[in-house]
């Protein structure tokens, strides 16, 4: 579909953008400056303030093996969470968008699925901590089914998957609602036209739904990446990075090494590196996923 009102740049668009841009700019400019400045400094008691140490903090950071462990875990966690979120949210949204014989029942399900999202992270972490207990409900169920017990949060090879599962459970409703909103915004005309052309439901899904949902799904993945990559509270409450360092995320590294003991210089350096990693990933993703004509048109 072409959405071309004019072929020339139309700077009136900036009027629409201005309020949001001003707020974002104001809220990022000063702190950003501060964080970058701090990352080159260190607090010194003798000097009674911050003094420049330039790239020392970064050097220390890159030579810390724990940092690299946390980077690896974070990528696994983020990508796994995105896959699980979409894997849960997309099909359920399709189900809930299908034609139901009874709209009330469908609305009930729509309401029911949002429930996990209403748990605040510490509460969800606590709840799943109970469910995951070695002799808790899940393992009890597994043992009744004749499957041995699983140490969800105690087994280093399971723990990261377990916390990913919880992260998916809490946040999939968000992505489900977003996708549902997208599905509902697709004009009915397009489906009717496809039906006239003799397309069955699968062809309609492939040729109408998927392309229409493209930018939204790209955005959803982006949101998920941006939130999961610096995820903290849920996993922190459940494991604090253990057992061993199997669930140790980059945000834990930031908190433990930089902020808990108020090493603001080091903490800022970690923050800047995280921002750089995210910026690279997001930029690469956007450049690959969004074609030029899609944004400029």
């Amino acid at each position, binding site marked *: 579909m072409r959405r071309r009102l004019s072929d020339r740049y139309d700077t009136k668009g900036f009027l629409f953008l201005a309020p949001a841009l001003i707020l974002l700019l104001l809220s990022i400019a000063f702190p950003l400056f501060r964080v970058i400045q701090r990352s080159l400094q260190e607090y010194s008691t003798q000097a009674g303030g911050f003094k420049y140490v330039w790239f020392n903090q970064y050097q220390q950071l890159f030579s810390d093996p724990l940092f690299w462990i946390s980077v690896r875990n974070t990528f696994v966690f983020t990508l796994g969470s995105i896959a699980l979120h979409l894997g849960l949210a997309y099909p359920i949204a399709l189900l809930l968008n299908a034609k139901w014989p009874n709209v009330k029942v469908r609305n009930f399900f729509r309401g029911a*699925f949002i429930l996990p999202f209403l748990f605040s992270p510490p509460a969800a972490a*606590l709840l799943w901590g109970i469910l995951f207990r070695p002799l808790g409900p899940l393992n009890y169920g597994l043992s009744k089914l004749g499957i041995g017990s699983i140490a969800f949060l105690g087994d280093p090879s399971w723990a990261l998957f377990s916390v990913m599962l919880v992260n998916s459970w809490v946040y999939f409703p968000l992505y489900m609602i977003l996708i549902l909103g997208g599905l*509902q915004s697709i004009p009915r005309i397009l489906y009717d036209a496809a039906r006239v052309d003799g397309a069955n439901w699968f062809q309609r899904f492939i040729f109408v739904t998927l392309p229409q949902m493209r930018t939204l799904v790209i*955005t959803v993945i982006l*949101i998920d990446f941006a939130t999961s990559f610096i995820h903290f509270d849920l996993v922190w409450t459940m494991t604090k990075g253990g057992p061993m360092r199997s669930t140790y995320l980059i945000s834990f590294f930031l908190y433990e090494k930089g902020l808990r003991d108020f090493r603001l210089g080091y903490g800022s350096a970690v923050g800047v590196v995280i*921002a750089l990693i995210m910026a690279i990933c997001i930029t690469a993703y956007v450049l690959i996923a969004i074609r030029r004509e899609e944004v400029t048109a």
Partner: protein
Amino acid sequence: MRAHTQRIRHILLYTITTLITILVLFPVIFGFFTSFKPNPEIFVYPPRLLPQKWTLQPYTSVLTQQRYLHYFLNGYLISISSTLLCVFLGSLAGYGLSRFKLPAKRGLMLGILALQMFPGAVLMVPYFNLSRALGIYDTYIVLILIDTTFALSLVTWLLKSYFDSIPVNLEEAAMVDGCSRFRALLSIVMPLARAGFIGTGVFAFIRAWNEFMFALILTKGPNRAPVTVGLAELFGQYTIQWNGVMALTVIATFPLLIAFIFVQRYIIRGITSGAVK
């Protein structure tokens, strides 16, 4: 024959959805009943879904404390205000990005995301100092602004993609009829993107509702702090009030769920009776 396949289709629909619902909602149900259990019972083997001895103590201990009322009201006030502000600013920006040919648009869109890339924890101290310098420490305003900015970039992106899926010729027709740009946005695009607004609104609301660190650091206590700060009170040095946390979640969740069902029904009705059909 057609009726037959239709019937099978419906049965399938119901069974699959019910199965998924049970899987997804089992923890919710478990958490609900946990809120009625005395704490030691939560750890007994074999685990039970229903309490052996029902107790309302987790509820009364929360509900009888004046400050929890504050926490709730603050939570609603902050979250609703920041949601409205965020969706308003986001829809303007999203529309601008979706409908105008702008120079360096991809760079602009990436720039909007810049704030998202800094973990909130790094910004804690700068924001704390800034809020005190501006004299908005321990006010609603600071939390509303922070919650808004943290959700705004993603809300803008989301609304842009919803607007993208709405054919542009509808507005062009309206504008040919003499509608202004802004009118076209309000009367044509917004109603069509209604379903998208639920999603984005829920996103902005829950993010604000669950925000904890800034609420803790930038407020002095129950007078301005939202529910998450009240929840943290239940995590002690030695023990956690497990049932209290679940009870507070139930209390906090109930109005939200009702509101969600209400809003969603209202907006869906708007869509099905709207012009798109």
